[in-house]
């Protein structure tokens, strides 16, 4: 078991974002997380990467305990790739530097080695010709593909995708999902918070439906998306499909 989450509770003041959630994820699994906004999907991802504190429960990834206050938490974070809804590219660096930077300062790769890896990944996301462009000159879809390349450059063991297509035009959504699909086929372990039901149906090994900080229903896409047992899952899917 690669990721083990036990009884995770995460509160923000009076609001309980995650309410005793447990989940195991296997290596190579592509897990899609769906649910209404405010249900705790994003919080779950952010807890996995120690960007958010949780009050109770336990998360371990490949045996490493996730603890936001641990001094060496950055060493664990670099094994976990994350792609954000708002891209969060570094606007003062060009595309190549965006992908190179963490390789250089965190992985301590030489400029030549980092550039070689960056070029390979940028070719993979079909952006090799944009290597000198600044983020401000790119479309949303291009930015998000750079962000994916940037995360992959660290050779993460698992990739977290936090509503990565929610800020994109439908046109651009396709190009980002294509990259993710390719990654899934290559065997990357992926946790995808998404509203793209079609993507979940096609790519996911498992779909979980979260509401009010708890897993309401989970199973293969066929079960959860086509024949949901739970009324809340049915209501939600009725609205988004």
């Amino acid at each position, binding site marked *: 078991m690669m990721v083990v989450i036990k009884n995770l509770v995460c509160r923000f003041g009076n609001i309980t974002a995650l309410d005793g959630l447990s989940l195991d994820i296997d290596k190579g699994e592509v897990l899609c997380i769906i649910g209404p906004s405010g249900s705790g999907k994003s919080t779950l991802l952010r807890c996995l*990467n120690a960007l958010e504190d949780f009050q109770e429960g336990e998360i371990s990834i490949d045996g490493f305990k996730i603890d936001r206050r641990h001094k060496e938490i*950055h060493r664990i974070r*670099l094994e976990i790739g994350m792609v954000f809804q708002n891209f969060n590219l*570094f606007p003062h660096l060009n595309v190549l530097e965006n992908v190179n*930077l963490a390789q250089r300062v*965190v992985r301590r790769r030489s400029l030549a080695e980092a550039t070689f890896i960056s070029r390979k990944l940028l070719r993979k996301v079909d952006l090799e010709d944009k290597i000198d462009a600044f983020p401000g000159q790119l479309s949303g879809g291009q930015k998000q593909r750079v962000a994916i390349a940037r995360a992959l450059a660290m050779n993460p063991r698992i990739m977290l995708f936090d509503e990565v297509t929610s800020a994109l035009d439908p046109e651009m959504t396709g190009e980002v999902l294509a990259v993710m699909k390719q990654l899934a086929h290559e065997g990357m372990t992926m946790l995808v918070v998404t509203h793209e039901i079609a993507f979940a149906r096609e790519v996911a090994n498992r779909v979980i439906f979260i509401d009010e900080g708890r897993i309401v229903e989970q199973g293969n896409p066929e079960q959860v998306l086509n024949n949901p047992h739970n009324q809340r899952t049915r209501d939600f899917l009725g609205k988004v499909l």
Partner: protein
Amino acid sequence: MNWIIEQLGILSKIFYFLIQVVHWTIIISILAYLIALVCGLVFGVARIANNRFIRWLAGAYINVLRGVPLLVLIFFFYFGLGKIINLDRLVAGVLAVGVCYGAYMAEIFRSGIEAIDYGQHEAAMSLGMTRWQTLRHIILPQSFRIVVPPAANEFIACLKDSSLVSIIGLRELTRAGREYANQYFLDFQTWLVVGLIYLILTLSLTRLVKVLEKKFAVHGYGVIKK
């Protein structure tokens, strides 16, 4: 007509006299500003440190030095501290102006750092960067761009306030102006020229700032002026 020529002669004589000490005004301002930059960066970053004591220390520095008149600071450094540890005029004057402006610069740097979207911190952390690496490679380079106009503003203010060190006998522009005016009883003409020289200095700085702003501009960020 003769009167005008006579007056222009006086003015140019004063100008020639003063221009010989103008480098001291420039040196004092630059040295004081360098101290202010270092103090500002250190205390500005310290203000948002994790450690509560460091944060408190930075807050104390800023509040104390911002709350005391610069003239009093200059007296304190020269007559007070200077007597105890034997500081010469230049060191005391430069230090006083430097640490005072450091307090303002610290607030400018802090606001520059806090202006950066928190998503930038998160993206850097998710790539495994430490807090320090994030600050050094992601946050500060972006903050500098924001900080250039207000920081340049402080340099202009610093240059003008360097005139205050004339009071402890540092022979810079204002001091030399006072000497000249007292000697020849030409107050109107002398202070006119002193003011003019300060104006020339500050206006040239303003031009320089424009160039800097362009240099730090980033595509798709703010307006890039032609």
